[in-house]
């Protein structure tokens, strides 16, 4: 259990934390959230004594952490930070073993830990253990960042906006993994974020802070139902309207799409595009399963000498399931710069398409009815 007792901190004249008191029970996923400058990161860093309080006490399992050795304390608490957590001069295996090595585990045990950890997130040992951070994607790096924090199986893990720098889809995936890991390993996690969606998804308890004080501390459901102030409500924003968060992709996709069969000729395809006034068509196979897209640009650039459209089919367009979360789909459209995503049924047949237009329409309907 983590307990803050009247903790205050000031930098110069600025009061960062003001008599903060709260408790986080063992095995809970607690998310600290609030506007920037509210003291959430300061609070987090006090738990592993990267920042010391001016007043007040912090207890872990009833022990005042001030009385413990800083370095020993930190080895018993996992720590994940945004982006550059991994040491670039060390391989994945070495990064994961940083804390076990500091704790003087023998080599065999360290190896075993690396195997277990990579196995847990489905990254093959042979492929990844010897890689350096700069040889991996941001999502993979942050997975290793989480594994490093878990390696010495600390009962508490601190996470400081760990997924903030990742693209929306990767972030979703890592959040899901994180939630699963936490349930499986039964860790106490303290997680800082400014993204309410993330907080609602992950938290057992949300601690909402403003100006160094707690505005509301409640489970997600409770916070959604009874936000204690207008600031909390504005943070909950779209999430507080229960209807909105449950909207799935199929509720606003367009279904009247121009499709062509993958064996059709180029001329027929361009003719079709011209007639319907579109620049891209969706290609399907005999069983109406989605194959890819063909754009007029592809035909102009590479269509010379081809008979059918088959060689021109591009598979770069993002696809989503029809029961997928509408918000993720919107986030993707907004962040990626793509103009549309393809919606598929469960058997990979084509269900529809979501364009920026249909997204705007759905949003306006939600706002003004």
């Amino acid at each position: 259990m983590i307990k803050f007792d009247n903790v205050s901190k000031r930098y110069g004249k600025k009061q960062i934390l003001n008599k903060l008191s709260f408790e986080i029970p063992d095995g809970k996923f607690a998310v600290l959230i609030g506007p920037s400058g509210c003291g959430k990161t300061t609070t987090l860093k006090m738990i592993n004594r990267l920042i010391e309080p001016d007043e007040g006490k912090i207890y872990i399992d009833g022990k005042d952490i001030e009385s413990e050795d800083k370095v020993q304390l930190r080895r018993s608490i996992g720590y994940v930070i945004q982006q550059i957590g991994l040491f670039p001069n060390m391989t994945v295996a070495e990064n994961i073993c940083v804390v076990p090595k500091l704790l003087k585990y023998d080599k065999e045990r360290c190896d075993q830990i690396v195997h277990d950890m990579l196995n847990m997130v489905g990254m093959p040992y042979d492929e990844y253990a010897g890689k350096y951070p700069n040889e991996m994607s941001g999502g993979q790096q942050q997975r290793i960042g989480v594994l490093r924090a878990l390696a010495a199986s600390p009962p508490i893990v601190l996470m400081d906006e760990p997924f903030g720098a990742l693209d929306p889809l990767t972030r979703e995936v890592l959040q899901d993994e994180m939630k699963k890991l936490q349930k499986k390993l039964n860790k106490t996690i303290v997680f800082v974020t400014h993204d309410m969606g993330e907080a609602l998804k992950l938290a057992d308890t949300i601690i909402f802070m403003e100006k160094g004080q707690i505005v509301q501390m409640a489970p997600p459901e409770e916070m959604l139902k009874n936000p204690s102030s207008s600031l909390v409500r504005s943070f909950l924003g779209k999430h507080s309207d229960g209807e909105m968060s449950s909207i799935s992709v199929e509720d606003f996709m367009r279904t009247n799409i121009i499709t062509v069969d993958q064996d059709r000729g180029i001329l027929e395809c361009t003719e079709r595009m011209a007639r319907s006034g579109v620049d891209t068509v969706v290609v399907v196979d005999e069983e109406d399963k989605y194959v890819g897209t063909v754009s007029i640009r592809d035909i102009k650039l590479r269509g010379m000498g081809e008979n059918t459209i088959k060689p021109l089919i591009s598979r770069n367009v993002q696809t989503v399931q029809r029961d997928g979360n509408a918000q993720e789909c919107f986030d993707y459209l907004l962040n990626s710069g793509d103009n549309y995503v393809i919606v598929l049924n469960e058997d990979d047949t084509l269900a529809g398409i979501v364009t920026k237009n249909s997204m705007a329409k759905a949003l306006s309907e939600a706002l003004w009815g």
Partner: protein
Amino acid sequence: MYGKMLINSIVTHVCYVIISVTIGFVLGLIIGILLSRIPKYSAYIFPIVSIFQTIPGIVFIGVLFLYLGMKPVTVIIALSIYAMFPVLKNTYTGILSVDEGYVEAAKGCGMSPYQALFKVELPLAFPNVIAGLRLATVYTISWAVLASTIGLGGLGDFVYQGVSSNNNTLIIAGAIPAAILAVVAGALIDRLQKKIMSRGTRGEAAK
């Protein structure tokens, strides 16, 4: 007869360089690390050190000569001190330019200040340190020419004899081997760096 003299001079020259650069590198590395622990004070220490660096080598050797006499030690002390500066400066700035996020991650993982220094900060500052060593070596090869001003040999013998007797061939006989030495030493250090440095940080060094 010149051939033998030339080889002798090159050997002396190389000895001066290796000994002085080694001493200078170790000193520079240690002092650079120490200063990086106290960046607040180092802001005042560095300008003072820099003034010292502006004293011409020939003056410094001359002064040392007055106190220590005509011994190889005189040359080595002078060259070591000059070789120390680039290493010191690069080590210091290299360590300070390591992203604070890494240092915080190291602390947060439970590394002691020493462990953070040796496992994270120094390895990440390594490209800078080696760049300092490279500078120091190349400079020292040219500075070692000054040894002959107090009659202690090295390739400077040729250069000064050539200058005083107006013999261009002699000057070139001293200058060309010195230039070749500098190029070879630079290449050796580059290879060393590639060998030692981990694959993970090489990309960053290239930036």
